[in-house]
């Protein structure tokens, strides 16, 4: 009872990525707390792969991740937005051309 008074230092937060099966990318599945990298992997196995959900796990400290900010959405993603020629549907091909 005496212990549970104020917030104290907690184990750092890790993000967890799981490869569902061979041939697929690792996908972010959630996060967890662990004292170090090895413990983070063990916890990730127990929390996120209790039913054969994965064949490989990555863990990385959340503080090590650099993310694009949604507020910068336009400048960051705009360059691809106006390059529609990168998409196959940009090109008009007659319907009777086979295997296209």
């Amino acid at each position, binding site marked *: 009872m005496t212990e549970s008074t104020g*917030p104290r230092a907690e*184990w750092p937060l890790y993000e967890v990525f799981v490869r569902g099966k061979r041939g697929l990318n690792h996908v972010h599945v*959630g*996060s967890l707390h662990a004292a*170090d990298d090895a413990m983070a992997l063990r916890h990730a196995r127990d929390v996120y792969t209790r039913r054969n959900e994965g064949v490989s796990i990555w863990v990385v400290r959340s503080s090590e991740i650099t993310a694009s900010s949604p507020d910068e959405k336009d400048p960051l993603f705009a360059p691809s937005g106006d390059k529609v020629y990168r998409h196959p549907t940009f090109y008009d091909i007659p319907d009777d051309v086979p295997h296209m």
Partner: protein
Amino acid sequence: MTAVADEADLQLAFDSTIAHNDRIEPRDWMPEDYRKTLVRQIAQHAHSEIIGMQPEGNWIGRAPSLRRKAILLAKVQDEAGHGLYLYSACETLGVSREELTLKLMSGAQKYSSIFNYPTLSYADVGTIGWLVDGAAICNQVPLCRTSYGPYGRAMIRVCKEESFHQRQGYELLMTMMRGTDAQREMVQESVDRFWWPALMMFGPPDGDSPNTERSMAWGIKRHTNDELRQRMVDMTVPQAEKLGVTLPDPDIRWNEERQSYDFGEVDWDEFWAVVKGNGPCNEQRLAHRRKAYDDGAWVREAAMAYAAREETAR
């Protein structure tokens, strides 16, 4: 001036995301009340999973066979996992795990009142799987489409596992119903105790649930409490008939016009008494959680000290 204009733009973007039935993600701008509502709901949900380990954990050491023990262990471990998925989702809203744990232990945040009822016989393990997890499934399936991305994704994982919970419970009860008269009586007695508290899990009637409308406008909730309660009754009545138990409500009857079952009035005085802390096990549940937290303190500190030493040794 610009700050106000910016805020209006952000609100507009938020509203349009919700209107398109698209998801809000952690780093998006969101109204403060939306964030607060989510923290309260997800935390309540996470705490329920964690406290929910206790009533069933009570029977692990006394399971009637190795098979039942292995099943119950796996189920209680799943509840822990569900709590962790949900804490993880809640933390994306800018609250720390420690803060959430402390608020559970101080009573500042609630957990589902169903876990304040005791488990008096092994039949309760089956009844909890069937009725309590059944009610949880009714609640949780629509939450897979909730407007906050991390919450919806956590709910998808939870729902996949919840089906095992309900089925193991129903199967346990079916096995007992095929047994002796005494076993059948145990099942009926257990169902008598859990039926009404299970219906209370959907929360107060719509008229007394002031936040429902706003939560639905935000896409956090997809159905009202009473709609979900009705769905639960409609699902459960035929299951009870198959099982051969009587639900303790003489008012249950099929309503041809509504194509639904009518049912009696929940005892809302009991519901509010339990929510306010006067249920049979409120104190015991929180005391147990605090003890686990305090007893584990040295482990958390030792692991942290070890990690710090390894870090400097590198």
